[in-house]
């Protein structure tokens, strides 16, 4: 009796088990965990923009291509390798473009806007999905075609990176050259890529430490006057050329940096006997001393939330980076690696600090993550100086000295490097705001 019941039981369970073994995969989805991604750049092609007026004064597609390629985030197809040169979405044969390993295609055209300027229209197409991701239209004045091309790059960059592009931003830097039997120092402002340089101030005596106001309308900097035997820290309005002298006291007047609201300057003064950091209110002309000790305190820089100031101090022996509250209280040391750490400044989101670190290999640019306190070296040295974050925090510009003298940019993760070539000795780059 028991035996036959057990037998039936076995047969039934076997049958059910078999059914389940066959049925289960058809009902539950296969699980695949994606935990990594490719390190490659995004393949994109920008087809030459169409124009019914013949050749335009600016090759929009070329300018935008160079912008995107310089970030290292994009792999831009060279024009001679394009299978076709469409200017409208309906001219695109997606199958052909897929064979070129191009994931994304930009097609556009430029037309007069009836007011002496231009209207640019363009589409961003996804080659694999075979459709348009977005369409844009830009209006520009007669002399603004290059800016419009940069705006094309900004819009595309933002779609893929999720950050604003910096292609309309400007940089300031200082050059020194021999001219007319003497020396000429120049403070120059140019596009972020070095194009369209314009001299903002020049002198036979050294110029130092350019610093952009947060709205990009002014530059603070230091100019020496050897005849007077003084240095002068001033603020110059870029539109009017108006110069407002902030401090020309005995001793050091140096290292200006702006507060995030543009209302205060922090600076180094030594007129009271020792280099210390002071805060200056541009509205009231009030000067407040923030550090007060016998060591060198200099190279102050504000945090983007306005609550802290990082600075260089050798109160511990060698120069290191310290941080204090913006009223001067609660000083704490931030750096403990390398021989010395100097000239710190924050990224726009406040998450990172860049600085110059000296080690056995010389002076190199370092990036410190504020959360993890990890430090990553992003340049080769041996004499790198003056790092400054791009206004979207994705890159750092700095100066190389020694055998090669040039300005260079590196992506914040250290992967992509590019060079801006300048004539003569060049130093102290400062990266202005986004420009839009």
């Amino acid at each position, binding site marked *: 009796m028991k035996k036959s019941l057990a037998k039936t039981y076995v047969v039934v369970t076997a049958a059910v088990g078999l059914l389940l073994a066959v049925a289960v995969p058809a009902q539950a989805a296969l699980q*695949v965990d994606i935990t990594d991604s*490719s390190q490659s750049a995004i393949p994109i092609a920008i087809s030459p923009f169409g124009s019914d007026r013949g050749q335009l004064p600016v090759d929009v597609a070329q300018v935008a291509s160079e912008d995107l390629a310089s970030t290292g985030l994009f792999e831009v197809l060279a024009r001679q390798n394009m299978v076709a040169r469409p200017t409208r979405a309906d001219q695109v044969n997606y199958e052909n473009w897929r064979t070129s390993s191009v994931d994304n295609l930009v097609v556009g055209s430029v037309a007069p806007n009836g007011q002496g300027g231009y209207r640019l229209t363009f589409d961003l197409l996804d080659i694999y999905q075979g459709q348009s991701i977005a369409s844009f239209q830009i209006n520009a004045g007669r002399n603004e075609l290059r800016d419009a091309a940069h705006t094309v790059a900004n819009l595309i960059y933002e779609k893929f*990176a999720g950050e604003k592009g910096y292609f309309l931003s400007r940089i300031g830097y200082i050059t020194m050259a021999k001219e007319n039997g003497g020396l000429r120092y120049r403070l120059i402002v140019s596009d972020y890529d070095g194009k369209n340089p314009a001299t903002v101030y020049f002198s036979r005596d050294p110029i130092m430490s350019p610093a952009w106001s947060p709205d990009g309308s002014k530059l603070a900097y230091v100019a020496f006057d050897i005849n007077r035997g003084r240095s002068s820290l001033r603020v110059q309005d870029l539109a009017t050329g108006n110069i407002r002298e902030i401090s020309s006291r005995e001793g050091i007047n140096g290292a200006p940096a702006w507060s995030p609201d543009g209302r205060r300057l922090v600076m180094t003064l030594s007129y009271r006997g020792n280099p210390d950091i002071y805060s200056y209110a541009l509205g009231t002309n009030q000067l407040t001393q923030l550090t007060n000790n016998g060591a060198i305190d200099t190279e102050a820089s504000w945090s983007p939330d306005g609550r802290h100031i990082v600075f260089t101090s050798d109160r511990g022996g060698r120069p290191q980076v310290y941080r204090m509250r913006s009223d001067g209280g609660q000083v704490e040391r931030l750096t403990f690696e390398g021989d010395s750490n100097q000239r710190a400044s924050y990224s726009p989101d406040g998450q990172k600090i860049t600085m110059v670190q000296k080690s056995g290999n010389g002076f190199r640019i370092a990036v410190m993550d504020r959360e993890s306190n990890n430090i990553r070296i992003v340049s080769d040295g041996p004499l790198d100086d003056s790092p400054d974050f791009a206004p979207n925090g994705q890159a750092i510009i700095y100066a190389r000295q020694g055998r090669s003298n040039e300005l260079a940019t590196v992506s914040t993760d250290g992967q992509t490097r590019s060079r801006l070539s300048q004539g003569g000795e060049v130093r102290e780059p400062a990266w202005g705001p986004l420009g839009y």
Partner: protein
Amino acid sequence: MFRKLADNWRSVLLAVGLHLLVAVLLVVGVNFVSDSSARGNHGQKIVRASVINPDSVSTDMPEMPEPESEPEPESDKAAEQTKAQRAAEKAAREKAEAKKAAEAEAARRKAEAEKKAEAQRQAKAQAERKAQAKAGREAKKEAEREAKEKAQREAKKEAAEKARREAKAKAQAEAKAQAAREKAQAERQAKAEAERKAKAEAAAKAKAQKEAREEAARKKREAAQRRAAAEQAERESSMREAMQREAAGRRDAANSQALGAYVQAIKDKVESNWLRPPGARNISCKVRVKQLPGGQVTGFRLLGSCGSSAVDRSVEQAISKSDPLPKAPSDSVFSPEIEFNFEPDQ
């Protein structure tokens, strides 16, 4: 599920309505920076109010000359001379007046034009301000809508997640229980078998022993023969069972090995095609992909946002670039639906 819908009919309506709105917007197309120079924070540097040249403003009709008021005397030489003189004077006067009038006219025109231009500048500035405020409000509204949508998607995602987890756990538990039951059953069987055999043996043995005195040798031989036979049968059956288990085990191993390799192949292909935006943090999302047995992707959808629209796009491109997916090694391993879980280590 439908009761839940009925309970929350308001949110369902809102969700559907928002999705429709978004769909409409997408269909109509994003016109990012319109041609009106008054609108747009994009290209603010580029887009400036342009001043219309006052010289190009259309002019008014010129003034009519003043009508004659002086009567002309009868023809007389002197009178004619005077007439001519007066005419000349009048002409000169008229000329002067016309000149004055023209000057005044020009001045008036200029003033008007300037006023007009000024008014236009102001109107344009005002329109700019208005439009910027409007754009700001719209952006705010858009942000609010997006936030609401996102919250709802999140909630939906969580609910779906939860249900899936529970279903998965349930299925897993069932399968486990099933396997355990089977195993126990097989064990019980073997055990019962062995017990029965042992019992039979013992009974036969006892019987033989009872009759052993009368037919000792023959019975002994018979018992021994029976014993030997029983042992042989047992050996054979247990050998059969062992062989069966081995065969089943080999099949399972081959299946799970093939499955593992298949999943790895899919993972490798999608990961090598995924171009992640740099600096994107806290990426976490699931994608449902439908495929044919040859690996061709027939459709996919994101179950909720991966963190930002840039990351969403990168995930979609990773899937579409990986089409066709690696072919499944066997029918038993193939699944028409794959669920990708994008959760990279930072």
